[in-house]
Each structure stands twice: as structure tokens, then as C-alpha cells.
């Protein structure tokens, strides 16, 4: 899947340190936001004399469970996103496996998301953390009114982003779809929860919502039971032709992931049991799904709370068993980003059960309050403070009179903004973060020695010496004109680096010396330039000479060039030097392009441009 594998080692210390640093910086900003909001609230209350009304209002129980439950799930997901290897590992270890087996259009979509991530791995990873933490906090603190609806809307919106780009639509378009493995994607249930939380409050005061949730859960479970029972999908056999059946393979693969020993033993034993009793295990799964589905449907149709409680209990036990034995808690092993689908499912049908028997939400006197009681809850007291302009008076008094949870909700919105802003920037910025190149190549070596001079022939047939380029920063590298792999990529990276330099390019010269003992003629440097589009770059020089001239330059710059036998490409080091306008070597950069994906190429271009700009800046 091109684009998903950035070629990065997710455990790269450079990447991990940058991710931690970004999280720390943003955490400080967030702490500052909380602090400022609290200060502003306290000051306003003192000045205006705000006081929260003691509203005799109680949130519908079902909605409270849904809100806090999914808020907590978002918080957990956000914390999981903060795993050190997430920045470099999410595309290859999460997105790629999620999209495996899906149709090409799904792979393309996921690939697009992976590409955006790979261009800006630190910004994307940090953004994901804060957006999810922010949504979680907002849901927990926003009890009602516009604040809750906005929080729920953000849950829907971000959930859809994660479900499509991150979960490949929960693999619902891939073969082997089963609720036991995570279908239809845990995050889709967050979307459903968000949509339910956007319903007007009065909806929750009637059994209709509970019936809707239970009925929907029932239909879903029945559908999943039918799918699980469908023959020919490999679920009825523990082994198929000597190979593990679908369920066995899943359980065994989960047992092989890093996890606590106790859990590993339990999952491995269940895998062995499934292997030998595949039919029985699937039969139990089909019966449990069908029974729970039917019971949900009947209890919804009859508003039968007792039957619903029994069904919820049975289904919850089944879901928990699947969560532990098949899904391995969803997030263990590798880079788990959420607890998978079973916990959200349990939450949803439990909420449905609670919704069947709504309780009064307010004392009789307060029932008449409109569906948006947030503003009505404010009852500022006059303190004799200076009068405010009319247009400002309302919002300020509302702010002063808001309870602390509302203030916390506002701060949570700040958390989301802190996360979303870099993500938005990353999406539109076509130049990749140089951190990827640094992670691949290692940090640049800082030098301070005179660059050895040389005189060679340019692609235009003119003699060019390094000394003649004084006054300009020189980015010098060594390229094989008939190289089939790295050199065209490095050359393309240099061309893009020149574009990034913009007007500063006039202060720089991009120079390559031929690194091939055989193909040294001008015709080959020109053919190479044409191939990589450098023939129109005015500050590009591709220098060559006799083999002895070239060998002298290679030697003095520590470049090893060697013809290899038997149809192999010539070998040489991939190194670039930044030479200051005064002729001093300042940096030695490994420009081995790694996997040469769009993201890594762009990242190397950024790194090269940054290095040149740094040198230009030092000379000014």
C-alpha cells in the first residue's frame, strides 16, 4: 500500500522525543487556557456578582450514562494516542492492517489519510491526542444545552474522520466481516452516541429513545448473528485444510501480541480451544447474538424493561467475553488506539435499557423551563459593579453565572482547538516536516573546516571550481547519472528544496559531482538532468571530469565509489555537504532517501532547504 509505510522506525528516538516535546508544549498551552478561563470566570464573578442558579434539574439517567461513558472512551482513546511510537507507527501498524483486504477505493482513501499523517507525523499525532482528550472532557462537562450539542457534534464529526481514514470504515467492505473482530468499527458507535446526544432533552424524557436504541441494537445483533452463521466464511471450522479457521486465526494472532502473561495464557488457551472446537464456539456466538438481538427487539417493541435488563446482562457478558478472549481488550499488542467495539456496544444497549424507563428530570416547578435551560440557569446577582454596555452585558453575566462544569467545557473546547489547529495546518501544507528525514538519516553532523577545492566540468561544458562559487551557500552531493534507485530521488529532493528556498535560492548553488567511475561523460549528466527535471534549474550544477579528477574529489570528501560486478549498480555513499558562502563546510548530511515515498522525499527536501537557509542566515 504505497504511502502508508513512511519507512520510519516508529521507535526512532528523534521521532519519539519530538512527539513528547510537542505534547508537552501543547499541554502547557492547554494548562494556560484552563488557567486563563478560570481566572476570567473568577474575576467576572467577582466583578459582576455571578451566582449559579440552583436549578432543580436532573439530567435523564440514560443520557448521563451515554454522555459520561463515551466521554470517558474518548479520553481513553486520546491517552492511547499518546503512546510514544504513535507518530511514526500509526500508518504502518494501524492504518495499513485496518485497510488490508478492503476494496481499492477504501485503500486509496486510507492511503490519503496516511499520507497526510506521514507528511506531518508529529503534528498529526499530537493533534489526535488533544482532539480526542478535548472531546472526551467536553462530553463529560457539558451537561445540557448548546454546549452538549456542540460536544456531541464534535464527537460525530471526529468519529467519522477516524472511522473512515483510521479504521477503513471498520473493515465493513472487507471479507471476513464479523462483530466478534470489531465490526462495524468501534468509532462508528461513538458517532451513533454523538448523534443520540444531539437529540432534544425532551426526547430522553420519554421511552422512545430507549426503544430506538434497543431496537437498533436488536436489529444489529440479529444481522451479525446471520453473518456469523453464514456458511463458507470459515467461522464454523477450527481449522480449514490444515490452516486455522477465521476465528482461530484471529485469536491466535491476538495471543501472539505483547501483553500481560496472564492474558496471553488465557487468549492462547481459548485459541487452542477454538481450533479444536470451532463449530461449538461459533454456535455459541451465533446463538448468543441471535438471542440478544431477538430479546432487544422484543423488549423494544413491548417496552419491556425486565426483558431488556435480562438481555442487556446476557449480551454484556457475551460482549465482555469476546472483548477479552477474541479482541484481547482491543488495545493490547502493537499500537492500539481504542478498546474496539465491545465496550461501546455494551454502553449503547445499556443506555437503551435505561431509556426505557425515564425518570423525572426536574422538580415540578422547573419542568416548565424550556429545552435549553443552560441560559435560564444563570441568575446573576447585582453587586453594584459598573454597568456594562448592553451588547456585552448578557454574555458577561451568563459567563459569570455559569457553573464550573460549563467553564470546564469551554476550556475543553480550547483543548480541541489546540489539537485541531496544527492538524488543519498539516492538511493544507504540502511541504513535509523535516523530522521524518532527520529520523531516517540521523541528525546532521556539524562541521567547521574549509571545504576542499576542486575544478570540474559542468553539464554545460564549462570549467567550474568550488572556489568560484564563493559568496553562495553550496549544497554539494554526489550522484550517479545511471543510478536506478537513490540518486534520481535525491536529485528530485534537491530540486524541490530549491523551490522551497524561493527567492533565497539566488544565494545558493546546488552542486552534484558524478559518482560513477564508468559513466562520466557530459552526455550522461545532461540525460540525468533531463530525467529529473533539473535541466531548467538555474542554480544547479552537475559536475564531471576524468576518472582521476573525480577520484580525487571523492577521496577528499570521503566518498567511496566503486563499480560492482555482474550487472550491479555502482556503489557510493549518499552524503551531502552544506558549504558556507565563505567556503567552510558547515554540515554533513546523510541524504540516503530511505523508502523514497512522497512524504519522505518532501521531508528530505525540507531538511535540505532548512540546512541551506540556516547557512545563509549565518552568513548574513
Amino acid at each position: 500500500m504505497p504511502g502508508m509505510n513512511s519507512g520510519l522506525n516508529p521507535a526512532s528516538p528523534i521521532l519519539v522525543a519530538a512527539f513528547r516535546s510537542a505534547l508537552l508544549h501543547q499541554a502547557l498551552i492547554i494548562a494556560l487556557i484552563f488557567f486563563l478561563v478560570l481566572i476570567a470566570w473568577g474575576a467576572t464573578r467577582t466583578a459582576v456578582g455571578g451566582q449559579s442558579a440552583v436549578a432543580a434539574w436532573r439530567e435523564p439517567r440514560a443520557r448521563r450514562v451515554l454522555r459520561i461513558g463515551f466521554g470517558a472512551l474518548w479520553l481513553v482513546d486520546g491517552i492511547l494516542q499518546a503512546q510514544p511510537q504513535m507518530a511514526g507507527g500509526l500508518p504502518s501498524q494501524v492504518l495499513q492492517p485496518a485497510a488490508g483486504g478492503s476494496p481499492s477505493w477504501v485503500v486509496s482513501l486510507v492511503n490519503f489519510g496516511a499520507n497526510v499523517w506521514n507528511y506531518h507525523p508529529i503534528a498529526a499525532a499530537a493533534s489526535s491526542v488533544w482532539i480526542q482528550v478535548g472531546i472526551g472532557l467536553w462530553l463529560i462537562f457539558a451537561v445540557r444545552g448548546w454546549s452538549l450539542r456542540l460536544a456531541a457534534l464534535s464527537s460525530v464529526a471526529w468519529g467519522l474522520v477516524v472511522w473512515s481514514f483510521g479504521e477503513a470504515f471498520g473493515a465493513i467492505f472487507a471479507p471476513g466481516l464479523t462483530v466478534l473482530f470489531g465490526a462495524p468499527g468501534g468509532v462508528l458507535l461513538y458517532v451513533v452516541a454523538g448523534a443520540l446526544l444531539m437529540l432534544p432533552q425532551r426526547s430522553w424524557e420519554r421511552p422512545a429513545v430507549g426503544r430506538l436504541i434497543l431496537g437498533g441494537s436488536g436489529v444489529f445483533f440479529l444481522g451479525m448473528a446471520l453473518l456469523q452463521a453464514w456458511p463458507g466464511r470459515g467461522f464454523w471450522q477450527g481449522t480449514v485444510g490444515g490452516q486455522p479457521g477465521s476465528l482461530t486465526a484471529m485469536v491466535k494472532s491476538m495471543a501472539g501480541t505483547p501483553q500481560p502473561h496472564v492474558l496471553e495464557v488465557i487468549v492462547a488457551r481459548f485459541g487452542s480451544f477454538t481450533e479444536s472446537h470451532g463449530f461449538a464456539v461459533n454456535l455459541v456466538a451465533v446463538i448468543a447474538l441471535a438471542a440478544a438481538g431477538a430479546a432487544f427487539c422484543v423488549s423494544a417493541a413491548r417496552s419491556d424493561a425486565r426483558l431488556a435488563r435480562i438481555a442487556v446482562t446476557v449480551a454484556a457478558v457475551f460482549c465482555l467475553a469476546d472483548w477479552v478472549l477474541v479482541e484481547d481488550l482491543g488495545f493490547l499488542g502493537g499500537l492500539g488506539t481504542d478498546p474496539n467495539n465491545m465496550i461501546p456496544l455494551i454502553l449503547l444497549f445499556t443506555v437503551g435499557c435505561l431509556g426505557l424507563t425515564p425518570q423525572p428530570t426536574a422538580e415540578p416547578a422547573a419542568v416548565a423551563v424550556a429545552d435549553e435551560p443552560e441560559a435560564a440557569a444563570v441568575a446573576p446577582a447585582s453587586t453594584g459593579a459598573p454597568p456594562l454596555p448592553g451588547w456585552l452585558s448578557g454574555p458577561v453575566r451568563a459567563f459569570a453565572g455559569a457553573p464550573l462544569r460549563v467553564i470546564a467545557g469551554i476550556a475543553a473546547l480550547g483543548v480541541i482547538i489546540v489539537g485541531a489547529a496544527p492538524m488543519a495546518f498539516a492538511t493544507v501544507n504540502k511541504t513535509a516536516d523535516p523530522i521524518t528525514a532527520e529520523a531516517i538519516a540521523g541528525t546532521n553532523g556539524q562541521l567547521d573546516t574549509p571545504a576542499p577545492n576542486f575544478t570540474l566540468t559542468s553539464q554545460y561544458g564549462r570549467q567550474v571550481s568550488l572556489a568560484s562559487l564563493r559568496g553562495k551557500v553550496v549544497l554539494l552531493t554526489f550522484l550517479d547519472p545511471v543510478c536506478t534507485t537513490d540518486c534520481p530521488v535525491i536529485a528530485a529532493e534537491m530540486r524541490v528544496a530549491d523551490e522551497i528556498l524561493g527567492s533565497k535560492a539566488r544565494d545558493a548553488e546546488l552542486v552534484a559531482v558524478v559518482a560513477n567511475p564508468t559513466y562520466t561523460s557530459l552526455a550522461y549528466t545532461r540525460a540525468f538532468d533531463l530525467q529529473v527535471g533539473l535541466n531548467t534549474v538555474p542554480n544547479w550544477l552537475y559536475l564531471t571530469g576524468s576518472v582521476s579528477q573525480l577520484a580525487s574529489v571523492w577521496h577528499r570528501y570521503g566518498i567511496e565509489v566503486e563499480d560492482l560486478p555482474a550487472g550491479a549498480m555502482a556503489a557510493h555513499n549518499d552524503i551531502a555537504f552544506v558549504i558556507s558562502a565563505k567556503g567552510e563546510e558547515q554540515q554533513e548530511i546523510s541524504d540516503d532517501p530511505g523508502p523514497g515515498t512522497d512524504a519522505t522525499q518532501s521531508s528530505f527536501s525540507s531538511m535540505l532547504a532548512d540546512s541551506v537557509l540556516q547557512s545563509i542566515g549565518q552568513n548574513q
Partner: protein
Amino acid sequence: MTTTTGRRGSRGRVRSSALAAAAAAIASGAALAGCGSSASPPSSAAGPPASSAPAASSAPAVSLATTLSTATDSWAIVPMSANPAFWEVFIRPAKSATWQLVTPPGVADNGGLVAATDTESGLTVAVRPSQDLDFTPVASTADAGASWSTDGPISDGVAASAGALAVSGRQVAAVLGNGTIEASSNAGNTWGTLARPGTIAASAAGQKCGTLQVASVSFGPIPSQVLAAGECGATGTAGLFAYSAGDGWQRVSLPVSGQLVRFGAGTALVRAKAGLTALWGDDALHWTASAPLPVTSAVTASGGLAGATATSAGGMWVLLPGGQAATIGGPGQQWLLLPPTPAHTSVLASGPGTALDALAVSGSTLTVWQLDRGSTVWAKAQTISVPIQLGSSS
């Protein structure tokens, strides 16, 4: 795996992926050679096991694996290893009984090699581009591969056809992948376009042919005369056209009608209804046909054999599925069916004296089997372990 250290030795990470890969490849290559040796059939009176599979190791390799003969030397172009294949050039000088590895250095040749000889002892090789290389490097040798010099590159990839390159003195012609014919009069230093795709079909001579899919070029008796051969779109039969500056493109009629299998300097191989027919050009316009070899199966590889004398027209060989092979010595001679070729035979070539060599490839080992005139048994004559640099092109 080793790393090379930068000039100051301060940065161990300063490395060459290719150098490191090469070191790893030497180790793995040695392992491969070992496997090849143990798997090779023993040299015994019973002879080698017959081929049970197509000769060449991979499908794309089939059309390019070939041999060429000059007045003095025999050249062989064979793919070795696989995924990717490394193409190798071997030579057996006229006065030598053994083959030597002389692959031109400095460029990855995983895309395949297309070679052409002049009447002299030299060989010119076009290296088909692979991976991120777009143009075709060209190298030539005039001293039996002891040293190579580079000619100017061809601006695009040459066609995947053993006859896509032709040399005559300083004249060079090449067919590109899209059917364009490029020509150079200064040994490849500068190139000009002789015919774009459709040019020949649009000419008066090409109208009965329809769209000509040019696959091969050669030079006529006069070096300025270029011959282009391919498949006529209208009929699917061989179409041969001659170009000269004064006359433009003229169609050359062949004595047999059928599919073109091979076209080279003064020789052609056509599959007609009656079987495989070898053709020799008396000049550009007049061709002599052999009696057909009555086979219907596809030819997996073909090539040229040395003539009976330095000046006489050379022969041809074909490899057929199932280890079958046949040769023909020259004009006026008959096809000769050979004993089943050794396993993994890639090409046949003129051996020392009147013998015939079969070059068999297994991994990075080339085994030369020899068939003496009148014998029915291939005898192992030589084994060459080729230092394939696995991983050097990735």
C-alpha cells in the same frame, strides 16, 4: 553487513546502502553458489537430466536471452538469479574453449541487456532502464570485454527485443519501447529520430502492412541502409522495411510468410504454417529460406551461431519447450534436432571447434554443457560462479 565510514570517521552512520548490500550479497551469493553446486547434475557418462521446463528463468527474460557470433568471438546474454534478474554478458573468444564473464560495469542491468555486434570483434550493449532510470545507457567493447567505454545514452528505454539494437562501424540504430527508431552516425554520441511510431505505416510502402510494430533493426550491406522488422497490424505477419536517405521506406518481400521470431544482422527466423524457417539476406532485398522445421510450439529463445568460415553466413539455434532444441548451420543446410538440452538451459552457442555449447543458469551459477558433433550426450564443460550483488538494486 558492513558500513563505510565517512572521511572524518566521526559518523558511523555515513554509509552506502549499495556497498553494504553488496557485502551482504557476497555472503548470500556464496550461499547461492553452494546450493547451485550441490543441485547441479553430476558430470557422468549418462549425461545431464533433460530440461523439463522452459529454458529461461523468467518470462520477460526469454526474448532477450540470446547469443551473437562475430568472426572471432561468441557472446552470450543471459539472465541470472531472479526477482530481480541480473543480466550477464559472457564471451568465448575464438581461441578459447572456455567462457568468461564480461558484463559491462557501472550500471544496474535488471531491465535487461540488448546487444549488437559488428563484423569486427566488438560488442555494443544497450542497458534497458529499470526502476527510476528513464533512459538507456550504452556501453561498447572492442577488446572482447576486457574494457568497456560508454557511448551516448539513448533518450528512452530500448524495446524488449533481442534485435532492438544494430551496429555497423560508427552507425548505431535502436528501436525504443514505443516503436520509435533512433539512429546515430557517431557511435551514439548524438541521436536522431529515423521513424516515429506510425511513420512506416503511413508511407506508401507500409500501407498494406498497416500499423507496423517494429521490434528489430539492422543495417544493410550499405551502412546507411537501415532495415526495420516487425509485425504488421493488418495481418500479423512479418513485415520488413528498408530505409535509405534517397528512397525513404521500401517494403522488402520475404520468401515465406509468417510470424517474425527473430531478426538480426543478415538473418531472420519466421514461423510459417509449415514450421520454423530460417532466412539469410544475400543483400537487403534478397533473402534465402531454409526448409521449414516442422514444429508448432513457441520458441523460448533463439540466437546466432558462427559460420563455417569467418566470411560465411552464420547459423541459428532455437530452444523450444520441453528441452527441445534445433540448429541450422547456414544457407542450404537442414535443421538439426538436438538431444534434450540440460536443465535450465538459457541459450545455445557455438562451442570450440565444431562443438555446440548449452549455457544453463541456476541461481548465480552458469554451467556450460558441450555437445560434440555426432554425439548424443551433453557433457559438463565449465562452471562459472557469478558474483551477483543481490540487494544492490533495491
